[in-house]
């Protein structure tokens, strides 16, 4: 009995030890990988209905991220079926009204919207019963913002033996340092290069279930086999201060494109440190990432003849 008690106590300690340690967020953002979720409204459509029956179709949208999408910029579309067969529209419908993003310490929940597609009716010949999957997608512009406190230092400063205000080594992303959004800045590290520069290595990745496209592209372009190729995976990155220069494909600038279609991608940037400084100092680097994101949902339908 005594042994049993000891074993139980041991298990309790083990379970307690497994609990993930939570670090209090110190950045300005809530943080996370969610964007806008789309789901069919309960009962719209009902999952089994008869040929000729009129069935309402609606989707619910919820902005779980931290960027507010202005009215008319996000679009929803039904797909995966032959639209004419169901009397549905094949086009993208703009969402009127903004989809407010969550804000730390102010608005913990993002905005919600319901979009109605009217009613579907299947009037074609049904042999016994017909199984179909109705899909809906949302195509929306989104922005990820990261604020990173970098350590502005240089070999000149460090070799001069002055006081070190900050350290160059280590991961610079802190909890809450990147806004809640599907594309994330997943790593930000620094190293000294040359005599008066620091180099930043950043890693960007699509961390959610949807697909990323160029913010400049139209939603219709992403559905086309040919035109989608030039847009797929492209994210636009802007860095501030403007003297942060990054090696983008074809150009060195503080703004450019990176393709995250096939997985996480690294970007290397440099920043010249103020040569007049007699010690290292903290410099906030802002990283803005713009893109369009597509997420989808589906519902299985059975049409009875």
């Amino acid at each position: 009995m005594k042994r049993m008690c000891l074993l139980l106590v041991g298990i309790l300690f083990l379970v307690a030890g497994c609990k993930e340690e939570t670090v209090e967020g110190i950045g300005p953002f809530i943080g996370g990988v969610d964007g806008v979720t789309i789901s069919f409204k309960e009962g719209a459509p009902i999952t089994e209905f008869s040929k000729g029956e009129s069935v309402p179709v609606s989707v619910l949208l919820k902005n779980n991220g931290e960027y507010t999408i202005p009215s008319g910029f996000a679009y929803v579309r039904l797909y995966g079926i032959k639209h004419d067969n169901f009397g549905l529209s094949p086009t993208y419908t703009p969402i009127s009204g903004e989809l407010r993003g969550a804000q730390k310490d102010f608005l913990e929940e993002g905005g919600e919207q319901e979009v109605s597609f009217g009613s579907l009716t299947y009037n074609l010949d049904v042999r016994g019963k017909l199984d179909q999957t109705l899909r809906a997608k949302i195509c929306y512009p989104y922005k990820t913002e990261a604020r990173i406190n970098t350590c502005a230092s240089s070999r000149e400063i460090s070799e001069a033996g002055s006081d070190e205000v900050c350290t160059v080594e280590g991961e610079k992303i802190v909890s809450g340092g990147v806004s809640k959004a599907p594309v994330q800045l997943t790593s930000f590290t620094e190293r000294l290069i040359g005599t008066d520069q620091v180099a930043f290595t950043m890693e960007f990745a699509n961390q959610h279930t949807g697909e990323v496209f160029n913010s400049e592209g139209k939603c219709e372009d992403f559905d086309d086999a040919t035109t989608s190729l030039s847009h797929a995976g492209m994210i636009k990155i802007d860095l501030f201060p403007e003297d942060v220069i990054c090696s983008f494909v074809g150009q060195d600038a503080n703004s450019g494109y990176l393709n995250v279609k096939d997985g996480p991608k690294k970007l290397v940037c440099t920043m010249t440190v103020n040569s007049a400084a007699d010690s290292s100092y903290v410099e906030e680097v802002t990283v803005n990432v713009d893109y369009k994101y597509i997420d989808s949902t589906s519902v299985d339908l059975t049409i009875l003849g």
Partner: protein
Amino acid sequence: MKYFLLFVLIFLAGCSGTSTIKSDVGGVDIFLVEGKPPFDGIYEERPFAVEAILKNYLDRDVNGEICTYDSLGDEFGGIERVDCKGFTMDPAIYLEGELIDVAEQRYSFGPYIYTKLPLGLEDTNINVDVTYLTQSRISAPVCLKKDPSFKTDFPCDSDTILKGEDMRRDFAPVTVKEISTKMLPEANAKNTMVLDLTLEKEKRGFVVKDLNNNEPLLGVDVKFAGTPGTFSCIGLRDGFVKMTNENVKLRCSGDLTLSDTAYVDALDITLNFGYKLVAPDPAQAIKIYRLDDIGGK
């Protein structure tokens, strides 16, 4: 323990479903009533009858003809030429795919009498055949993609093989066993789809074009429920294929106008044909007894 086992056995027996067993001919089946005709022998100058039961396992009404005939010449009496009756039968009742009840009808012929049988004539064959017109409908969801190499965010393979549960098939004596689909890339705003169809016929029975034409021709119609396009098939003549074997292959191709990058539409195949069954199958000779041989008048 003994009672428990007994209870389990009773319970399992109760779970075995409905007792109605589907026919293995995929449509209307025919059974001869015992003694009609009398397979143990027919006597000259003595009447005999022919009686058959038809069972309709199809989920739709059936129209057709039931006929009886023998192998002897009309000069000996018996069944002169062919004795036929038209029939219409109610559909079988299915509930969620399970057969609940089957429509059944009995058809009587005769009486018939053999006379003036010549010396040396020892047996006859008496058959009943049923011919009915029917339709077999096959439906399968197929994902249509303008560019077969385009990666969609949902499962969509234009090049696929459909069989078994992938298709919804009417219970019928002829159906589609397998469909192989292949989509060619879009050209001039159209996509060509190539379909390889394997048609399958039940072992018993024959395909006939209609009630008055015994040619083994089966009408085939292939189309998508909502996607415009016409299919033409190699092996079809005027929309008919010769169905003499249990399996027949057809290659069909059609130019489709797709309304979206990728979507699922129902491929609908309709087979129109007549079907004939003969009873008894195989044929069974019936001994005939001449009055002179058995000493009667």
